[in-house]
């Protein structure tokens, strides 16, 4: 199940590419002791033996599930203090992955905010019900942006290749079901695709 680090271009299918952004050393105990990071290498961790030994520096991931969301009629709140607000109710859907599957219960929504820099912020809350009747609260924050013509096509409800825009989310889960309690303990990343009838999110667990 475990795949190589997602930066590997040979491992793109179903997963997400990543590249190192930065390395931050915060010093809550003694300022300045940590850390003059060696060199300017993109793989600074390689010069940092404790971090380089294991997954501490090279994150792997594996598919968690794909969630298909069916959207209801958008509620256009319009211009608000932080941008333009649209609330999209979730009326149903389903999800499936190696360890869980089931349906999306009606009742959730995505509280979308179009920012002044043309980035769409997502703020979703839904409830999943597994095929063995466990309920799971799923929420995420995410970002969607892309070329104006692509975003306009999505706005017209057209089908667009998801590689034409950036749509990434950070799903979180809560459940009391012991079988699915692993969801309470993981960081996950989703790749989204806007569909005419809703959205599809392919979610990877960060190992």
């Amino acid at each position, binding site marked *: 199940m475990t795949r190589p680090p997602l*930066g590997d271009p040979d491992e793109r299918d179903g997963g*997400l*590419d*990543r*590249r*190192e*952004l*930065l*390395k*931050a*050393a*915060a*010093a*809550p*105990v*003694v*300022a*300045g*002791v*940590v*850390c*003059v*990071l060696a060199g*300017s290498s*993109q793989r*600074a*961790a390689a010069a*940092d033996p*404790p*971090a380089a*030994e*294991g*997954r*501490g*520096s*090279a*994150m792997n991931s594996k598919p968690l599930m794909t969630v298909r969301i069916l959207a209801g009629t958008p509620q256009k709140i319009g211009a608000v203090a932080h941008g333009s607000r649209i609330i999209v109710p979730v009326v149903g859907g389903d999800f499936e992955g190696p360890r869980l599957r089931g349906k999306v219960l009606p009742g959730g929504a995505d509280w979308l905010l179009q920012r002044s*820099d043309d*980035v769409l912020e997502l703020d979703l809350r839904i409830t999943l019900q597994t095929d063995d009747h466990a309920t799971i609260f799923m929420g995420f924050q*995410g*970002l969607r*942006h892309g070329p104006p013509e692509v975003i306009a096509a999505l706005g017209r409800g057209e089908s667009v290749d998801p590689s034409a825009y*950036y749509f*990434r*989310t*950070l799903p*979180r889960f809560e459940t009391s079901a012991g079988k699915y*309690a692993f969801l*309470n*303990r*993981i*960081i996950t*990343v989703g790749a989204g695709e806007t569909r005419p009838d809703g959205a599809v999110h392919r979610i990877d667990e*960060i190992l």
Partner: protein
Amino acid sequence: MVVPPPQKLGAVPHGTRVIAPITGGTFEGPRLRGRVLPAGGGDWTLLRSDGVLELDLRLTLQTDDDALIFMSSFGLRDGPPDVLAAIGRGEPVDPSRYYFRTAPRFETSAPRYAFLNRVITIASGDRRPTGPIYTIEEVL
């Protein structure tokens, strides 16, 4: 520099709250580098009843060309009890022995760094006795 110790608030409704002020640090990557400002940041950690430590970090980065960047992150730290106990005692522990992952977010008004406003990122953490080191990746 004299710095405050962790502020142990103890049992609160959602778990055990410990606030760890951040008093400095550095950051470096292919497109940005600089220092962590010494005042105002911290990690509002919460030890949950299931043994998972939730992290809620806020700090300010200052680049080497004087741009300011607000960084916040939500994260989870989890692992075998003996490993977490060793970390708690301030011992160095191989980060591969525990799960320490976060999802940083950024805000800046500096055009040169505005790409940070538009990316989803994830990080692996390494809890050193002197403070954590985060290796942050941009999700492409």
